């Protein structure tokens, strides 16, 4: 029983970082209707910027992380403003390909600069300390991830509920024409959404960096986050979070009881199963195309 609970807890901890990536993807999917393959790399570049700030320029952590988040915000805005917005009435495939192109450029830049070596992020919290909750153990880094994920979800919830710009974002996602007629600058709102999404992703990246830090570090979390978002329905923020936790928990249980070797592929089996039953994910209304 203890084993089982411990695995679930590990799954929830892993699911937290997937949830952050998934949240970023859903934000962008709702704004631009594109599955954002650059989500991982949008976090990767800021993470390496943070690494440079901490390592080469000796900036203290409490300064470096906010600077990184601001950088991530501008990176996200820039990608939308300079590249995605310039596409000539693209279809869904075209948009996917544009994000893949951006992803390759950012990945190339980072791996050109840093090579393929494994680096160590000088992070204030070590992944080897752990906290005991009853008979269960959770590493303090995982605990921080969990708390950060919950905190960001809360902030996003409040942001979309009470702030003017959050409501404007929701409005332009629901009906862009109507929102524009109401005086919302929908293009700017979309750009801001990209910025926020990049920040959310970067938090996940920063929390993953102490464990593994190399140019391909975001691929796995991105795919799992994407899978979680798809399970949740791609258009629902709580859905993405729940989907990511489902993926994280099932993955860990599968790794514990069935086979550790195939742990990382079980996520895709889960999504195929879920999608066969509910083609638009668990928490989204099924979208029927009108002719």
């Amino acid at each position, binding site marked *: 029983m203890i084993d089982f609970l411990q695995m679930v807890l590990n799954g929830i901890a892993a699911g937290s970082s997937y949830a952050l990536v998934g949240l970023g993807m859903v934000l962008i*999917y709702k704004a631009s209707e594109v599955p954002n393959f650059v989500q991982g790399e949008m976090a990767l570049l800021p993470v390496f910027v943070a690494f440079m700030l901490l390592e080469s320029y000796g900036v203290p952590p409490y300064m470096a992380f906010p600077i990184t988040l601001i950088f991530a915000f501008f990176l996200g805005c820039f990608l939308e403003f300079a590249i995605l917005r310039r596409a000539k009435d693209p279809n869904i495939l075209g948009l996917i390909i*544009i994000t*893949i192109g951006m992803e390759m450029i950012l*990945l190339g830049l980072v791996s*050109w600069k840093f090579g393929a070596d494994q680096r160590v992020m000088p992070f204030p919290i070590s992944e080897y300390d752990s906290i005991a909750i009853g008979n269960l153990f959770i590493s303090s880094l995982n605990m921080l991830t969990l708390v950060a994920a919950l905190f960001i979800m809360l902030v996003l919830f409040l942001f979309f509920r009470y702030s003017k710009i959050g409501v404007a974002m929701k409005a332009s996602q629901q009906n862009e024409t109507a929102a524009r007629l109401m005086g919302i600058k929908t293009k700017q709102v979309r750009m801001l959404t990209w910025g926020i999404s990049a920040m959310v992703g970067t938090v996940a990246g920063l929390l993953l960096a102490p464990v593994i830090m190399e*140019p391909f570090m975001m691929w796995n979390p991105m795919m799992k986050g994407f899978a979680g978002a798809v399970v949740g329905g791609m258009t629902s923020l709580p859905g993405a979070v729940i989907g990511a936790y489902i993926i994280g928990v099932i993955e860990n249980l599968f790794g514990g009881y069935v086979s550790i*070797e195939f742990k990382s*592929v079980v996520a895709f089996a889960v999504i195929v199963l879920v*999608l066969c039953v509910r083609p638009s*994910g668990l928490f989204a209304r099924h979208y029927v195309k009108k002719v």
Partner: protein
Amino acid sequence: MDMKRDYYEDIQLFSSGVVIFWFVAMMVFLAVVPFIFKNYYIYVINFMAINVIVVLGLNLLVGYTGLISLGHAGFFAIGAYGTVVLITQAHLPFLLALLVAGLIAAIFGFLLGLPALRLEGPYLAIATLGFGVTVTQVIGKIKILGERQGLHAPDLIIGPWHFDTDKDFYFLLIPIAIILAFAARNITKTKVGRAFISIRDAEIAAETMGVNLTFYKTLAFALSAFYAGIGGGLYAFVLRFIEPELFSLSLSIMFLTMAVVGGLGSMMGPIAGACLLSWLDLQLRNILDIPYLGEWLRSLSQSYFSLTGVSNIQYIVFGGILLFIMLFEPLGIFGIWIRTKKYWKTWPF
């Protein structure tokens, strides 16, 4: 211009004498290549031919049927491993093994096509992506497939001939590529191809007109996977050694890039795209040896970037090409060709 006036004009293979001339010129060129070029260039052309085969299949799926696949490296891997294992374990002759491996890939394509019936857009992207990742993971765990260490391809023998050098492979690869290219082209002009196109353009309208979506969507996946499987089988022998890492997500993206850069939904476009990008891929692998540019990049890397990561410039180049094509010329090389042709035909207007 280029208006098709009747059915027979639409299905004819060569639309004019000029096209026949260039086709013959191309065939003559391909026939004399191994006698005039150095070995390295023949290797490059072999590499191109394999990518052309895969991208032709991918184009049938993405360009003609309008379904997305980010998992073609999976089919490619199934073809490669299938061919090698069928030869070494089941002792099948090469051509039969290649065909059977292609059919196995096609069965997997059919299976992947089943969930694809209900999925579209991002959902299909993640499902195919997951398939590609899963295949490499699973291959890395199976004993008979060499696990992570990989497999050596056996000697390639067809009847009395023993294929050994790049030049030998050339005579095997080019005919297969040409046959498959003609097959792909003819498929697009048959009932099947027109059904694919109608699904791409308007799915519901196609269904109303009596196009069986289940059949044609799974068929598109199976056909596309068959092409990828054949390409993979040949790749294993050109490379002589295969390991799971070769068939990563990057490779799937690479195939998609080739198809997009060439121009989706055309025949010559993806061929041109595959040739161009395979050549670029090989060139960029040792980018520092390129005259002038290499030296400049070396000094740039030393002062601002790192020398160890310089080969990763290829990601930047391919990403840049993708963005450039999508932003400025969504039809790819084929679109550029169409525009140039139109300009000259209507000149001076």
